[in-house]
Structure formats: C-alpha cells, structure tokens
C-alpha cells in the first residue's frame, strides 16, 4: 500500500526526524489560507500515488497566498499517470544549501533491508546510481541484529565527511528512518531530498513510504492511512472482498486464480489479438462469494465485451468457482458472453454444477483465450 507524502512525513516526524511544517489542502481556497498562515514563499505539491510529479506539473513554488491558490487550483485539476489529484501539500519553501538522498528498502536478492545514502540527492538519484554507483553508500542490515549504531554512523560520515556535526545528525536520522520503516511495516522508505539548511541543519523535505500489505492486519493505524479516493470504486470493492484487481484499457475481462496465471492469461489475450480489460486474481482460498464480487466488478466496467474465466484448481477448488458463477448469474445481469475454462482440483464436480445451470466449460487455456478474444471482437 502506498501512502501519501504528507502521511509519510508525519510518520517520520513521529519518529523524531526533523520534518519542516506543512499542511494538506483539498481545495485551492484552503491552500491559499495555509499559504497566508505561513507567509512568504510556499511549495504546493500534488499528493498522488505516482512518481514523476514534478515533471507532470504537480509541484510548484508560489509567492504568497494568491499565487498559492492559483497554483493549487491548477494542480488539483491534474491527472498524473491516470490518477486524479485530490489533495495538495502546502509547505513553507526551505532555503537549501545541499541535497542528499536517504533510502531503505527490502532487497530481494540479498534478503535484507539495505540502507542507502548519497550526497547527490534530488530527482536524478537513479541516474547517479547508474552512472556513478560509487556515490551511493549502502549498509546491509542483518535481520538478526537490526541496524547497528556503527552502520548509521558510517553512513553519516560518508555523507558528510569532515563535518562531524552533520554526520551525527545524519546518523540519527538514519536510525530513525529504519525504526520508522520497521514500525510501519514498510518495504520502502525514502527521504529525497534530505536538505542541509544554510545554518547546517538537516531537514527531511520529501518522504515516500510503501507499506507491505501483509503487515496491515496487525497495524490498523496504518491501514487508516489508506486513501480510498485515490483508487477507483472497483479497486476498493475488490480489496474489501480479498481480490486483486487492476483496471486496464481493453475489452476482455479476465477472472483468474493466481497472479502468475493471471498475467500469463493477459499476455495470451494480447498474443491472440485481444486487449485485456483488467488484471483480476481471485487468490488462493476462493469461495463462491469472491467469484460473485469478481463478476460484479467486471460487469460494472462498460468497456468489457467478453468475460474469460481461467481457473486451474489447486488450493482453489473448481467447484467453489462454479458455484460462484452460478450464484452470480442469479444475482446480477451479466450481459457479455462468459467463456469458462477450468481444470484441476474438483474439476468434475465443477463441470457438473456448471452444466446443470446451463453453462459449458472448457479445459484448454489457449482455446478458451482464443474464444474469449473472438467473442469480444464480435461484440465490438
């Protein structure tokens, strides 16, 4: 789960990291008032779950309340990478003497949290990493010991060699960043830039945090940070019933069990000349209700011209899926034609259930995908 910059800033501030003031506005009037309160120049930043805000015009420097209102209005009208901007952060503009980068991420390859720091902070950090990797300092955190004090200190002195004061400030921020990551159940935390003010103080200007969805069940206070406005209603409903759903631009609605098979199914739809309308994974322990929700979500997308079920039963039982399809056809009016492919656990029971309800089922994936693509083309 992504959280917004203003939320991540707040979590870091709670852990004692020096974060400058800032408030969130949902209207340009609010933004103007906040700017008036701070006085002077303010930064207006789109709060949206996507990178590249600056290049998309989502970050602006405003001089005074009137300009703040104007820029906020422009930003609140934006859509960035398909996501509408509904909130902006308004913060006093900081005097910046230097920009550094601090990040912590779960590294799949090494199986540890890696802390990263670079004195070349700012938006071009990935370019720094690619071209001058020696300017990215890393510390691997042995999960058995957690972050050790000397590691934080080492990063501090790497960032600010010969400046013990800033090195110690940075070491403290590194420790707090790691604590914030663990406490929030995050798989990524970043401060970029970590600025030095003209008087030599460090400030975390921008903050990013991705929360591991699997941590949310034991962190209700983090779950509350979820911004449902930043998701489509279908995505919200899907999550509520335990489905993974991502809307796409095509017309073949897909209901699949398992993320890998779902992706392979989408790839195959495209391979056979179609366009998938969504990624939808009903997951492992399916039950009939999940299937009903899946069909409701897909049929709500008017672009869908053909619906494809691709189920390979393992922990998912085919009879559960079949019961769901039958139940859904009673509850909802499903206009697009449904192509059902199922095989694996309890396949025979499933076929029986479907046939008694007037559905037919196939067992070959290629064949089913081809048919679903064809049906979509017929209904265009």
């Amino acid at each position, binding site marked *: 789960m992504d959280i917004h910059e203003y939320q991540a800033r707040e979590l870091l501030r709670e852990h004692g990291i020096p974060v400058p003031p800032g408030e969130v506005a949902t209207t340009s009037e609010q933004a103007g008032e906040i700017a008036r309160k701070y006085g002077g120049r303010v930064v207006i930043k789109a709060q949206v779950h996507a990178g590249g805000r600056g290049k998309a015009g989502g970050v602006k420097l405003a001089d005074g309340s009137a300009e703040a209102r104007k820029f906020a209005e422009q930003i609140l009208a934006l859509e960035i990478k398909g996501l509408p901007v509904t909130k902006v952060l308004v913060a006093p503009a900081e005097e910046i003497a230097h920009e550094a980068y601090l990040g912590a991420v779960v590294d799949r390859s090494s199986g540890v949290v890696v802390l990263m720091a670079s004195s070349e902070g700012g938006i071009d950090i990935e370019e720094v990493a690619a071209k001058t990797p020696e300017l990215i300092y890393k510390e691997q955190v042995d999960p058995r010991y957690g972050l050790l004090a000397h590691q934080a200190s080492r990063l501090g002195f790497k960032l600010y060699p010969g400046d013990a004061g800033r090195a110690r400030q940075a070491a403290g921020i590194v420790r707090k960043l790691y604590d914030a990551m663990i406490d929030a159940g995050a798989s990524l935390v970043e401060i970029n830039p970590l600025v030095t003010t003209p008087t030599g103080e460090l400030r975390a200007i921008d903050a990013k945090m991705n929360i591991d969805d699997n941590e949310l069940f034991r962190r209700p206070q983090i779950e509350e940070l979820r911004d449902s406005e930043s998701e489509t209603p279908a995505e919200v409903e899907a999550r509520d019933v335990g489905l993974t759903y991502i809307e796409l631009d095509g017309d073949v609605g897909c209901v699949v069990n398992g993320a890998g098979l779902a992706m392979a199914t989408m790839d195959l739809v495209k391979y056979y000349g179609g366009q998938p309308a969504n990624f939808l994974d009903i997951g492992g322990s399916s039950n009939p209700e999940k299937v009903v929700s899946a069909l409701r979500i897909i049929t709500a997308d008017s672009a869908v011209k053909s619906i494809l079920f691709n189920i390979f039963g393992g*922990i998912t039982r085919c009879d559960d899926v079949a019961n769901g399809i039958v139940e859904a056809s009673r509850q909802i009016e499903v206009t697009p034609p449904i192509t059902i492919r199922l095989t694996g656990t309890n396949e025979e029971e499933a076929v029986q259930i479907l046939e008694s309800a007037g559905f037919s089922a196939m067992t070959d994936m290629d064949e089913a995908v081809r048919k679903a693509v064809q049906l979509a083309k017929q209904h265009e």
Partner: protein
Amino acid sequence: MAIFADKKTRVLIQGITGRDGSFHARQMLEYGTQIVAGVTPGKGGQRFDDSVPVFDTVDEAVQAEGATASVIYVPAAFASSAICEAADSGISLIVAITEGVPVLDMLRTVRYVSDRGARLIGPNCPGLISPGQTKLGIIPGQIAAPGPVGVVSRSGTLTYEVVSALTRAGYGQSTCVGIGGDPIIGTNFIDCLDAFEVDPQTEAIVLIGEIGGSDEQEAARHIKEDLSKPVVGFVAGRTAPPGRRMGHAGAIISGSQGTAAEKIATFRENGVEVAERPLEVPDFIASALGG
C-alpha cells in the same frame, strides 16, 4: 531420483486440523505422501482421520514419528513462528504454503532457517511434487507424471498449466517446485537449478518467472556459467502496465526495473530459450531433449 523430497520423505503437516491443512493432507495421503504426523497446538493426542497422530509441538512429532519434512498451512500471523519451530526441531525441509506473511518477518525467518541448517520452500507457494513418489503442498497430483523434466516456478497455478501441458505432451517430471512469488523466499531459482543439475533423473529444466525483482536475470547468468543441462524459460507479465512506481530505492539497488521484456532479453542473451505461450513449453523441451 528427484530433488528435495522423494518417497522416503517422512512428512509432518503443521495446521493439519485447519480447513486448508486437512483438505490437502487428504490429497497428499491419497497421492501416497508418507504423512507421519500432524501438529496443531492444543490438539495433541488426537488422530487426524483416525490415522495420523496429532501433536502439540513439532518437537514431539519429530521425536515420536521421525518426521523429516513439514508442510505448513497455518494462518499468516503464525506462519513465521511455525517455520521457526520446524527448523528448530530438526526438520530439514520446510514447505510453507501460507500466503500473506509479512516480508519483514520473513527476513528474520529465512535467516533463522538457514542458521539451523534447514531448507525452506516458500512461503506463498504451491510446494513441490516428485511425481509418482510424493507431494508436499497443493500441486494437483493428477497433472504430473514421472519423467526427466525439472520444473521450477515463482508462480502457482501457472506452474500447473505448464506441468499439465508437459504431461499431456508425454514429458514427465523429476520434481516440480513452486518457490513462491513473495519478495523474500527460502529457496530461489538458483538453489533449484543447482539441485536439478546434480539430480540424475533430470535431463532438462523449465524455469517459470514473473515480472518484478531480478531473480530471473541472476538465474540466467547462473545458467550460462554453471549449468550443463538445457533450460527453457517462460516469463509472465509482458502486458503488465508500467507501474505507478514511487521511490527509487528498488531500482537503485537492483539496477533493474524488473520488466518481463528485460528478463526475457537476459535469458536470451545467456542462451536460454524462452517460450511465448505456456503451452509452447513442451515444444521447446522436445527439441532440448531431442538435441
């Protein structure tokens, strides 16, 4: 032969009395897996289906029944603890089916398992099957058949698809391993490739990858450097939309965006053939074995 588990493997089921645990324990028993014990804390002394003895702790199950492998079906909140208990009790192969295990838990758990000298497969994986011998996990038994192909996959159901296609095409399997799709897992592609390399039954290997991370790229380089047996690749997610990725840390650390295109290119650069469709995999295996 096979890798990791065969007909002699003495299997314990942690969470045997739960919904998923009991269902799949029966499937395994039916397949011929030697299930020697179950563990559900508080249900020690009972018998599962009037036959398999249930214990309160893994330690007791190991002492009393000589279990050497464990399959874990406990809920996500308790999965790490169950894995650690198995490793601490001398279980050498742990297959964790449970999905939704927090990643930060797994960082510690994976180290714990390796500190105790055990092997973990998963979590969030379908387990493994050595066709005709044993299965540990949820891979449907009927789709597999004994033979010369080793299969390793990050996916669950996509694996079934490929295995089923192989079987239908007459290519049985030595062992099929689903290593799980989570960011932090116990056994990775390279571990399995190395095991297949030294397994006499295995003559060719299928590797099924996905978008995300750089495991496939690392596997590709490893195949070129250290593997003599032919490997056929498949990567799911070519049509996945580019993410609304936030933050730079992942890309900085792996130097990769983790796209399917990048993975497929790396396979091909390292001499690994990549199938376009799951059902095309048997054709590639045919030519690999024929050659």
